[in-house]
């Protein structure tokens, strides 16, 4: 559509065509500019105000009084985040939890994706549907399921007691272990999917060549399969890690009072303390932490979206 086979002068028809294209492009562009990008500028703005008891609960940045426009910028929220060890601990806790969960997802998800990609063709679709199906049911309910399993009187403890492996119930619910388990469980399909789509495209002749040349299968895997599936691994890790850092539902339902994660802290600042400026500053710092992973993911994704198109 963008290749014009006959180089002709800009006739009226071509001009309307270009105009139509610009309109087509403009609709999603304007929507996303307004409802995705502009809001980030607003978070940044609100994070530089101070909280007041009012509706909305923050002071204006620009004030016009007696013909003078004054700009009031308050860096206090950021200094407050740095000075209170709670917030630093929450950021560290989020990154650590997300990192461990991502590694767990990769260790479970990679072999799963590998087996799926090597399965007979007519099985692949079934297996893919089976892996993705849980993610189409409710996320909230899948996390909730673990509450019944991990609780002190839950299924797992009852089972272990009945087997005689433990004498008293293990405390599993409301611990960091439960949060990591929950994130791994909830995000596993998003790790498997990109690795599978990557591995399924792998040219099998490369593996045959390696084996013909006397490569052992394990060497072939390390030397050929794994490096060639790097893009899929990266995409999967980003799809798990980035949302997991800001996760709120899982630490809220499965975590305990000592589970410090930034998504939960932000939620509490906003809904319980009604401190919008501090919540905004928390979001900005989180965004800054996630900027590099988001850019990495974007580069992968835009390559996927504009391949040979």
């Amino acid at each position: 559509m963008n290749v014009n086979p006959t180089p002709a002068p800009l006739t009226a028809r071509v001009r309307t065509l270009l105009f139509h294209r610009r309109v087509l492009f403009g609709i999603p562009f304007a929507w996303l500019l307004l409802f995705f990008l502009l809001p980030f500028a607003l978070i940044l703005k609100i994070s530089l105000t101070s909280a007041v008891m009012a509706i909305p609960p923050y002071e204006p940045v620009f004030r016009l009084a007696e013909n003078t426009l004054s700009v009031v910028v308050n860096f206090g929220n950021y200094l407050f985040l740095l000075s209170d060890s709670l917030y630093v601990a929450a950021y560290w806790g989020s990154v650590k939890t997300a990192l461990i969960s991502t590694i767990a997802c990769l260790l479970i998800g990679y072999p799963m994706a590998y087996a799926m990609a090597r399965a007979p063709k007519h099985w692949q679709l079934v297996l893919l549907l089976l892996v993705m199906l849980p993610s189409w049911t409710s996320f909230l309910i899948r996390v909730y399921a673990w509450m019944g399993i991990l609780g002190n009187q839950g299924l797992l403890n009852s089972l272990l007691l009945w087997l005689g492996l433990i004498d008293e119930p293990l405390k599993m619910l409301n611990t960091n272990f439960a949060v990591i388990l929950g994130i791994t469980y909830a995000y596993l399909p998003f790790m498997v999917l990109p690795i599978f789509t990557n591995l399924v495209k792998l040219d099998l002749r490369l593996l045959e060549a390696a084996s013909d040349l006397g490569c052992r299968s394990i060497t072939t895997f390390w030397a050929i399969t794994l490096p060639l599936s790097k893009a899929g691994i990266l995409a999967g890790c980003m799809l798990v890690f980035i949302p997991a850092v800001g996760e709120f539902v899982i630490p809220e339902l499965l975590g305990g009072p000592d589970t410090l994660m930034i998504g939960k802290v932000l939620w509490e600042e906003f809904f319980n303390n009604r401190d919008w400026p501090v919540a905004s500053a928390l979001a900005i710092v989180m965004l800054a932490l996630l900027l590099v992973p988001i850019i990495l993911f974007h580069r992968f994704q835009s390559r996927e979206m504009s391949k040979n198109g």
Partner: protein
Amino acid sequence: MVNARGISFSKVMLILGLLFLYLPMFVLIVYSFNASRLVSVWAGFSTHWYSALFEDQQILSAVWMSLKIAFYSASMAMCLGTLCAFVITRFKRMRGRTLLSGMITAPLVMPEVITGLSLLLLFVQLAELTGWPADRGMVTIWIAHTTFCSAYVAVVVSARLQEVDHSIEEAAMDLGCTPLKTFFVVTLPVIAPALVSGWLLAFTLSLDDLVIASFVSGPGSTTLPMVVFSSVRMGISPKINALATLIILTVSLVAFIAWYVMRRNEKRRRSGRLS
């Protein structure tokens, strides 16, 4: 790992992984039929919690609200996401294309608390400046859901658009088709399955969202995840087990139908190629 016939490590992991994914859901289904409130006690088979669920007016009205929002969000996201995918895969040299592709991929991974907070701040500021939206509720949730669901639709549709043979579109236009007609007559029928799966994906995402909806909703617009969340926060609730079972069964049924249709199409395509 390459051992094709025997039981390899990766096959074992696949089976264990699937068990890991399905056992918790299976437990929920089984316990939705438990007469007792407690998870550790099996007090006999009962459908009591299902009748309790259908008498709960709060849950029923939240289900209706969520279904409405999901329907409108999925429909709008399908249009917007397809448009996005189309301009990104077809208009290679358009100014602003890089920014657009950035804005469409970022919502895929953006933590929900950030998206929710940022949209709420936008709605508050808009209401201050223009008087709209006066109340937050269904419309604001619809806008929020449309925005992040469009990203998922764009990914699904652009994958399909890349497979479409470009030369057919060009041939249609060389023969005098307008670009609009070319899109509806040539491109759309080919990408229709992707539109359907994009719509379904957007529908489930919207139906499931708790965090973003909590930020941008107002009084009187409580969606299903909000009701579920406030009740499971208190602990195990057998009514929620019953609800979970119904959700899991519905999704499985739709997935089964989708699989059946895909398999039939695949078979038809294969036999068409052979003859």
